[in-house]
C-alpha cells in the first residue's frame, strides 16, 4: 500500500510538471525590426541609342499554363522595347504544386535564373520577407524620376499597405480589393417559364428558388441540373442561400465599435480583435469557428455573439440540405471537380462565379448553345443594394511578384515591371494581347474615356489570348470595363471598381507574423476543420444537420489541445497588434 501511495505521488508530480510545461507561455515573438536596408535602385541608362542589358536574360517564373498566343505577345514586346532593352525575357510556367517546389529549391540559387517570381501570403512571401530570401524594393517605388511607371501605378498608400516586415518585399498585384460573385443563369429559360416573378430577371433568393424549381420540373428530363458547383465548397449552394443576412454591419460601423475584423492568420484561419476605441488597448481576440465562444462576451454588441460570425447557419444548412432533397443540386456534387463547363454545355441551370468572367462565359455558352442567353443574379444583398463601404479591405493584394536575393538581375526585373506599368498601352499588351489580333477597342461610351474592349475571336485562325493578369499585370490604375456585358454586369462591375465600395479595416497596416506560433497554427484540428464544413455547404449531409454541426463545433471547443494552442496564438496576435497600435500613437 505504501508503495502504491508513493507511486501515486510520483505520477501526480509528473503530471503537474507536464501540465506546467504545456502552459508555458510562448516566448516573446521576434519583433519585426525596421526591415533590412533597402537596395539602391538601378538608374536608367541615359546614353542615347544604347539598349540596356546586352547579353543578359531575365527569368520570370509563374504558375499556370502558358497562354495561347503568348509567343506573339513576347515578340511584340521585344519589338516595342528594341531601343531601350537589350536583355532577353524568358517566362517559365508550372502547375502550382511543381511551382512551389521549384521555388523552394531554387530561390537561393544564383544560377537558377529566377529573377522575378510569383509569391503570396498563401505561399512563402510572409516568411521569406522575414528571412532574407527576397530583396527589399522600397527604393524603386515612389521614385518618379527613375521609375515613373512604378510611381504611376503604385502610390504611397498602396505600397504602405502591402509591406511585409516593414518593407516592400513584393510588388502587389490586384485590380480591385474585392470582387463580386454572382449567380449566372439561363435568361432564356427564365423567360420561357412564363412566371411573372422571373419576367424581369432574378432579384432575390425567393425568385431564384422559383427558377430552380422550374428548371427541375422542366429540364431535368434532359439531364439538366438546376444548380451546379464543385466539390471543394467554393461558390457553393450554401453561399447563395446565406447571401441575404439579416445582420449587416459595415466596415465603418465595426471600426467605430473597435472591432478589427477577419484577420487571416494563416490560410483558412481567421481572427477578429476588439480594441477599446477610447484607450487603444486590445481587449481580446477571437479565432473564428474554432475557439469556444466565451471570449466574445468581452466584445461590444452586436459582435458579442457567434451569430454575426457564423450567420444563421442552422437555417442555412437546413435549407441547403432541402435543396439537395428537392433535386436543385447535382447529386454528384461530391465528386464534381469542374462544374463550369457543364453550364457552358447547357447541362446546368445556374452556377456561381465572379462578375469578371461574364464575357468569357457568355462567349463559350453561345458557342455551344446558340440560342442561350445569359444573365446574372446578384445574390449578395448588400452588393445588390450597393451598400457603401460594404467590402472591408486592408488594401493588401492577394498576389505579388518578388525578386530573390540570389538573383544577379534585380535591375532587369524592376526595369521590366516599370515598363509594363508605365502606360496603358504597355500594360494591355501583356494583359489582353495584341490589339486587332486578340482584342479590339470599342468606341468609348460617354464618360468612359478609356474605352472598353472585346475579344476578337476567330476559331478558324486565332485562339483567344487569356493571360492570367493576377500573376503579372493586375493594377487598379489600368481597369477596363468588359464589353459585351449586360447592363447589370456593367452596373455591378462599376460598383466593384468604385473605391467608395470599400471600407478600410481598422489598423489596416497591421500584418500578423505567424512564424512565432507556426507550430500552434499547425494544430491538427485546424487541418481537419478546413474541410469539415464542405459537405454542409454542398448539401450532402444526411440527417439532422443542426445537431451534427453543433457536435462538430463542440468537439472543437472541447479539444483542450486546440484551445490551449489557440490561447498561445492569441497571446501572440494580441501582443503584435498592441505593439503595432502603440507605435502609431
Amino acid at each position, binding site marked *: 500500500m505504501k508503495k502504491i501511495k508513493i507511486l501515486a505521488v510520483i505520477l501526480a508530480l509528473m503530471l503537474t510538471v507536464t501540465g506546467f510545461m504545456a502552459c508555458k507561455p510562448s516566448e516573446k515573438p521576434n519583433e519585426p525590426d525596421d526591415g533590412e536596408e533597402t537596395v539602391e535602385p538601378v538608374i536608367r541608362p541615359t546614353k542615347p541609342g544604347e539598349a540596356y542589358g546586352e547579353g543578359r536574360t531575365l527569368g520570370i517564373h509563374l504558375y499556370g499554363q502558358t497562354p495561347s498566343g503568348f509567343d506573339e505577345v513576347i515578340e511584340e514586346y521585344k519589338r516595342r522595347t528594341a531601343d531601350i532593352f537589350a536583355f532577353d525575357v524568358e517566362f517559365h510556367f508550372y502547375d502550382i504544386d511543381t511551382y512551389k517546389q521549384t521555388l523552394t529549391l531554387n530561390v537561393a540559387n544564383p544560377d537558377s535564373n529566377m529573377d522575378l517570381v510569383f509569391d503570396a501570403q498563401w505561399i512563402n512571401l510572409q516568411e521569406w520577407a522575414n528571412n532574407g530570401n527576397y530583396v527589399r524594393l522600397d527604393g524603386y517605388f515612389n521614385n518618379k524620376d527613375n521609375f515613373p511607371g512604378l510611381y504611376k501605378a503604385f502610390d504611397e498608400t498602396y505600397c504602405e499597405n502591402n509591406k511585409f516586415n516593414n518593407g516592400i518585399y513584393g510588388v502587389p498585384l490586384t485590380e480591385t480589393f474585392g470582387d463580386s460573385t454572382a449567380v449566372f443563369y439561363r435568361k432564356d429559360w427564365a423567360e420561357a417559364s412564363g412566371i411573372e416573378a422571373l419576367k424581369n430577371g432574378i432579384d432575390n433568393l425567393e425568385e431564384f428558388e422559383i427558377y430552380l424549381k422550374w428548371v427541375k420540373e422542366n429540364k431535368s428530363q434532359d439531364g439538366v441540373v438546376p444548380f451546379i458547383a464543385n466539390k471543394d465548397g467554393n461558390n457553393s449552394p450554401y453561399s447563395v442561400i446565406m447571401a441575404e443576412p439579416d445582420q449587416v454591419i459595415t466596415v465603418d460601423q465595426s471600426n*467605430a465599435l473597435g472591432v478589427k475584423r477577419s484577420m487571416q492568420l494563416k490560410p483558412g484561419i481567421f481572427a477578429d480583435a476588439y480594441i477599446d476605441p477610447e484607450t487603444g488597448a486590445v481587449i481580446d481576440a477571437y479565432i473564428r469557428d474554432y475557439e*469556444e465562444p*466565451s471570449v466574445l462576451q468581452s466584445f461590444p*454588441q452586436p459582435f458579442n455573439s457567434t451569430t454575426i460570425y457564423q450567420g444563421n447557419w442552422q437555417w442555412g444548412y437546413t435549407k441547403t440540405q432541402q435543396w439537395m432533397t428537392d433535386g436543385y443540386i447535382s447529386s454528384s456534387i461530391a465528386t464534381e471537380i469542374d462544374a463550369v463547363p457543364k453550364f457552358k454545355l447547357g447541362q446546368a441551370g445556374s452556377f456561381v462565379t465572379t462578375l469578371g468572367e461574364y464575357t468569357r462565359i457568355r462567349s463559350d455558352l453561345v458557342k455551344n448553345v446558340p440560342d442561350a442567353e445569359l444573365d446574372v443574379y446578384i445574390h449578395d444583398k448588400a452588393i445588390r443594394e450597393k451598400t457603401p463601404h460594404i467590402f472591408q479591405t486592408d488594401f493588401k493584394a492577394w498576389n505579388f511578384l518578388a525578386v530573390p536575393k540570389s538573383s544577379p538581375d534585380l535591375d532587369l526585373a524592376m526595369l521590366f515591371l516599370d515598363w509594363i506599368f508605365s502606360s496603358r498601352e504597355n500594360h494591355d499588351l501583356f494583359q489582353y494581347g495584341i490589339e486587332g489580333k486578340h482584342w479590339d477597342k470599342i468606341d468609348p461610351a460617354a464618360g468612359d474615356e478609356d474605352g472598353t474592349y472585346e475579344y476578337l475571336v476567330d476559331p478558324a485562325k486565332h485562339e483567344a489570348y487569356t493571360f492570367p493578369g493576377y500573376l503579372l499585370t493586375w493594377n487598379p490604375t489600368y481597369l477596363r470595363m468588359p464589353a459585351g456585358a449586360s447592363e447589370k454586369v456593367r452596373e455591378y462591375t462599376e460598383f466593384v471598381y468604385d473605391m467608395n465600395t470599400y471600407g478600410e479595416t481598422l489598423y489596416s497596416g497591421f500584418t500578423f507574423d505567424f512564424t512565432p506560433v507556426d507550430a500552434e497554427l499547425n494544430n491538427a484540428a485546424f487541418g481537419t476543420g478546413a474541410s469539415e464544413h464542405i459537405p454542409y455547404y454542398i448539401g450532402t449531409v444526411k440527417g439532422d444537420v443542426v445537431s451534427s454541426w453543433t457536435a462538430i463545433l463542440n468537439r472543437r*471547443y472541447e479539444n483542450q489541445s486546440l484551445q490551449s494552442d489557440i*490561447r498561445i496564438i492569441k497571446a501572440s496576435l494580441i501582443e503584435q497588434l498592441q505593439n503595432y497600435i502603440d507605435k502609431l500613437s
Partner: protein
Amino acid sequence: MSKAGNKINKIMFAFFLAVFVFAAPFSWKTASAEEAGQEVRIQHYYGQSSYSYFLTDENLIYAFGLGPFGQLGDGTTSSKERYEAKRIDLQNIVQLGVGSKHILALDKDGFVYSWGGNTYGQLGIGRESEIADAMETRENLSRFVSIRDSAYPQRISFPEKVKITKVSASGDLSVALDENKNVWTWGSNSVGQLGNGAEEYGTKSFSAQPSKVKDADGEGNLENIVDICTTNSSVLAVDADGNVYAWGSNFYGALSNQDTDKTSTPVQSFTQNGEPLQVEKLSAYNNNVLALSKDGKVLMYGDNIFGQRGNGTLSVTDKVMQASEVEFFSDKEVKDILSAGNSSFVLLENGDVYGWGLHSKGSLGIGDYSDLPDDVKIVEDGIVVTQNQVVKPYRIVFSEDGQELKMDTFAGTAGVRTFFRDKEGVLWGFGDNTYGQAGNLDETFPNCSTPVRTKLNFSGDFDKEFVMPNYLIKPVITICVFVVLVAAMIVALRIKEKKLEKLDAEIRRQAAEKSQNNTENRTAER
C-alpha cells in the same frame, strides 16, 4: 380499542408518516423544469446577447443561454449553450443588474447577490490579491472558469449595514443605490467609473469590494440620489430634483457636460442648450442614454453609429456629446423610455411603441427592413445606404389574430432582444432568438423580426413547446397525497378496529358462552 389494536395503529401511523417525511423532500427538490405546469407570469427580462434571465411574479429567476463564466448561476460553466431555462436558487428577488459577464440580484430585504465573472472584482466578494496577480500574468485572457469566478450566487457584504434599493451593472462594473440615497460601486476602474476620486486609474485599476461614490469635490460622498443606471464604462445618477450626475468615460458623451474628458468624480450633466439636464426617467445601455425630461421631452446622448440620434442622421465618427431632443416626440405624450444601446424605444401614454436604431436580427421588431418607407432610412442618389438602420422613430405593431394591441410597460432588454407587457399582462418580445431566448420557438427561427408572445423553452429540443412549470403544484400534490394517505390510514384503522371489535366481541361471546357452559355444568354436577 385493545392494546394490540393500539399497537397496530401506532405502527401503521408511523409507517405512513415515514412515507410522507421521506417522500415530501424529494417532491420538493426534484421538481424540475421538464414538468409542465401552470403558466407563470414573467415580471421582467434581463440579459446580454448570449444569456437571458426571466424574473417571475413570484420573484424567482430562470436563466439560460451561454454561461462559461458561471452566469447561469447554478454551478454550470460550460462553453455550450443551454437552451433550457433553469431556476437559480434565490428567492424574493426584485431586480437584477447584468454586466458583460456577471450578474447582480437584489432581494426584498435589500441584500445583493452576485455571480459570474470576477476578473475585475465586479462580484464584490473580495480576493483583490488573486485578481491583481492574474492581471499581472494576463491569465484573464480568454478564461472562462477560475478561482475568481463564481458559478453560484454569493451575498455581497457591504462595509456598512445598509439596505440596497437598486442595482445596476454593465461591462465589468457594478453599482448599487442604498436607502440613504448613497451610491456604491465596485469592479473595473479603467476610466474612473468607480467614482472614488482617484487621480490614477487604468486597465489594471479595480475594486473588489463596494465603496461609496464621492461627491463632486471628491471629499464627501455623493448624496440625495434616487436612481442610477450605467453605460459600458460610466455611471449616471439622478438626484431627488431630477438633476443628473455622471462619472467615468466620456468617450461617447455619457457625462453630457461641456467637456470630453473622463472623470473619477461626478459632474453634472447638461442639455445641448446648456441647461442642467433634469429628468423624470433615465435609461442607459452600452454607449447610449435616453432621458425623459421633467417637461416631457425625449432626449438622447451617446453614439450615433446606427442612427440612435433619431433625427434622420447616422454617423460613425460624430457622437452626441450632450443630451439632445429627439424632436419626433415633441408633440406626443410619452409614458416611458428604454435604451437598448444600438437601438432605442419609447412607449406613449396611448400604448404605442416606437423604435429606432439598429434593426439587426429583428431587434426593432419592425419586420422586413425593405418594407419600411424611405424617410426612416438614409437615401443618397436614389440608393438606400443604410442596410438595417432606422434613423427616425418608427411605430412597432403588436397584433394578434388581426387585432392590434397596445403595450403597457417595458419588460427589459438585452439590446438584441426586447420585451414588453400588454395591458393584460402578457409578455411580448422580438429580436435575436438563436437560443429561443426571444421566447418563441414556433415563429421565425432564429430571430423574431416582429413581436410575438413570449414562451419559454424548458426542453433541449427546439421543436417542443413547454409552458413554465408552477413549482407550487408539487407541494399541493404532496399534501393531497398525504391527506389521501392519512384518510386511507384512518379507513384502514377503522376497518381494523371494527375487525378487532368483532374479534373482541366474538372472544367475549365465546368467553361468555364458555362461562355459561361452565356454570351449567357446575349446576348439573350438583
